[in-house]
């Protein structure tokens, strides 16, 4: 299968001699081009951060700059002065991410382990059952009707968690990784009289920590960054996740600008908007920088994203 091929290619990454030190012309050129590309990639983020720290009046006069004009933290103090909505959304996103990642990882790996077992009688049929969901899906409309009418989950926090719990792609990656565990250890456990559940939790899971860590990071990302489920199913602003709150703010910004609030204070729309974005992607970016090596390896292993 394609997955395995990619996994093999990924394993080639670590073994590489790092002995070459002399610079060649081609390397200088590669550095130059890559520097340019990466700088261009970073511009949008730098711009947004810069605007969030800029002075509102000078922004209106001079436009957005890559360096803050008239450094000011007013946007942040403004947002944090009335923090109910943003704190609420942070809380929702945090809860959903925690719950989804914990439960999702457990259920997915419990599904993946039997699929990795050659002696499991239902292996073939269940593998197909999981895999087929990658090929064909009912689309948005039946999904929407199912959740709203038949499951009655509209404006329920569970709707932000349940649909993503089992993702076929994650299950298949986990299966491939479980299948590579050395059979001797499992045989030894079996001879020692270990049951299936005990074998999974005490041997398989601890031995698969890297794969489980990778997949849990995928889960974290998926839940943290999700706006789709809220877009379809959440109307109650008490249940807005962070990303959806940002979308609503973006949509309402014109409205807010044309209705100066009664507080008598100038609304820092431009900088506050960008400050909100920074507050939303900041934690994700931080996590990414912290756990980057797992991400990079995990994605190389995961290969094709679903």
């Amino acid at each position, binding site marked *: 299968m394609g997955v395995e091929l*990619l996994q093999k290619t990924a394993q080639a990454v670590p073994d590489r001699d790092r002995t070459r030190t002399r610079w060649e012309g081609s390397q200088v050129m590669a*550095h130059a081009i890559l520097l340019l590309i990466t700088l261009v*990639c970073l511009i949008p983020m730098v711009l947004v951060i810069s605007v969030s720290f800029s002075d509102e009046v000078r922004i209106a006069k001079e*436009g*957005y700059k890559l360096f803050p004009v008239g450094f000011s933290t007013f946007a942040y103090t403004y947002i944090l002065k009335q923090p109910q909505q943003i704190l609420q959304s942070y809380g929702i996103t945090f809860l959903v991410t925690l719950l989804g990642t914990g439960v999702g990882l457990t259920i997915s790996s419990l599904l993946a382990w039997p699929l990795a077992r050659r002696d499991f009688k239902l292996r073939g049929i269940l593998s197909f059952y999981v895999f087929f969901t990658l090929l064909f899906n*009912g689309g948005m409309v039946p999904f*929407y009707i199912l959740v709203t009418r038949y499951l009655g989950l509209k404006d329920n926090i569970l709707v932000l968690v349940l649909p993503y719990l089992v993702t076929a792609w994650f299950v298949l990656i986990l299966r491939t990784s479980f299948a590579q565990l050395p059979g001797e250890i499992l045989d030894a456990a079996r001879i020692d009289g270990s049951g299936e559940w005990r074998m999974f939790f005490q041997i398989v899971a601890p031995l698969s920590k890297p794969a489980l860590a990778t997949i849990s990071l995928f889960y974290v990302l998926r839940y943290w960054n999700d706006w789709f489920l809220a877009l379809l199913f959440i109307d109650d602003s008490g249940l807005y996740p962070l990303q959806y709150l940002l979308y609503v703010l973006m949509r309402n910004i014109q409205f807010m600008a044309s209705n100066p609030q009664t507080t008598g204070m100038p609304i820092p729309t431009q900088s506050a908007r960008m400050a909100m974005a920074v507050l939303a992607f900041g934690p994700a970016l931080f996590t990414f920088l912290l756990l980057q090596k797992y991400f990079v390896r995990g994605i190389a292993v995961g290969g094709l994203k679903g």
Partner: protein
Amino acid sequence: MIFVEALASVPTCFAPIEDPLDSHFLTRPQRPFPVMPRFIARFFGSSREAQSNLSLSLMASPGVLLLFVFAYLPMVGIVIAFKDYRFDAGILDSAWVGLENFKFLFGTDAAWRITRNTLLMNTLFIIVSTAGSLLVALLMNEVYTSRMSKYYQTALFFPYFISWVIVSYFLFALLNGNTGLMKKVVETLGFETIRWYRAPGYWPVILTLAHLWNGLGFGSLIYLAGILGISPELFEAARIDGAGKLAQIRFVTLPLLYPLIIILVLLAIGRIFHADFGLFFFLPRDTPVLYRTTDVIDTFVYRSLVELGDIGMAAAAGFYQSTVGFGMVVLANWIVRRINVDYSLF
């Protein structure tokens, strides 16, 4: 046959469970599954095997159930494309209308527009992203041993972790008509100010660049892994034969990467009927003026469903996407199989 057996063995399901108060309960030798119906035992094999198979089935069951609800039920629900769906009646009791919804959908200009945009934009994405990722992977390979490569990887990768909602803020910071950065750039270069959010002509380029920006780290990493997997002896041999850097790329790296490139491109072609909803929905900010170039099947389905409440139209477009999309995947996979069975998805 198995059903007959099942019926015959039902009573064993209800065989009395050992009384836990029975004083011999713990000391008496236990059969592994005193209440297991015979037909299950027969299916799973000998008792030891049966026990482990049953445990494994139990482990898999929560996942199987969730997939059933959230993946398989909607597949069945796809029939509403042939119904006049009414919320009070539900899927089963709504009236069949045959191809009415499809007639309505394909009678509009929208059907052609969303099909064209979806296919065209995805084709653009595939070409540009593949070329861009390959280029970056080749460059990264040159400097792989350098300490800077870590920085490059981080900088290229971070967009992958940013949601499209936030990217829409990024893009707005660049393009908005009053204060955006691009306004200044365009003015400095001496051109007339462009109202980006009113000019549909620019959006294929903007969206392609956004897609490239988002996927470059991911795509280049996969190709880099492929390049690093090539045996160094081959490059050595090429060098001895007098091949320069470009010749090595052309005659060693690229030919050995072809299988990987072909798989990834074919997989992308398999998904060519599915557009990235977030990208097309948030970046143009759902602006009607831009629909001419930015409206794709997914955004159309969403709009018909949620904003217009036209479930029949949405369902017909969704059915069209699901089935043609499925055909594309199967076709793409069939082609891969013809090339090399090992690389195929199924």
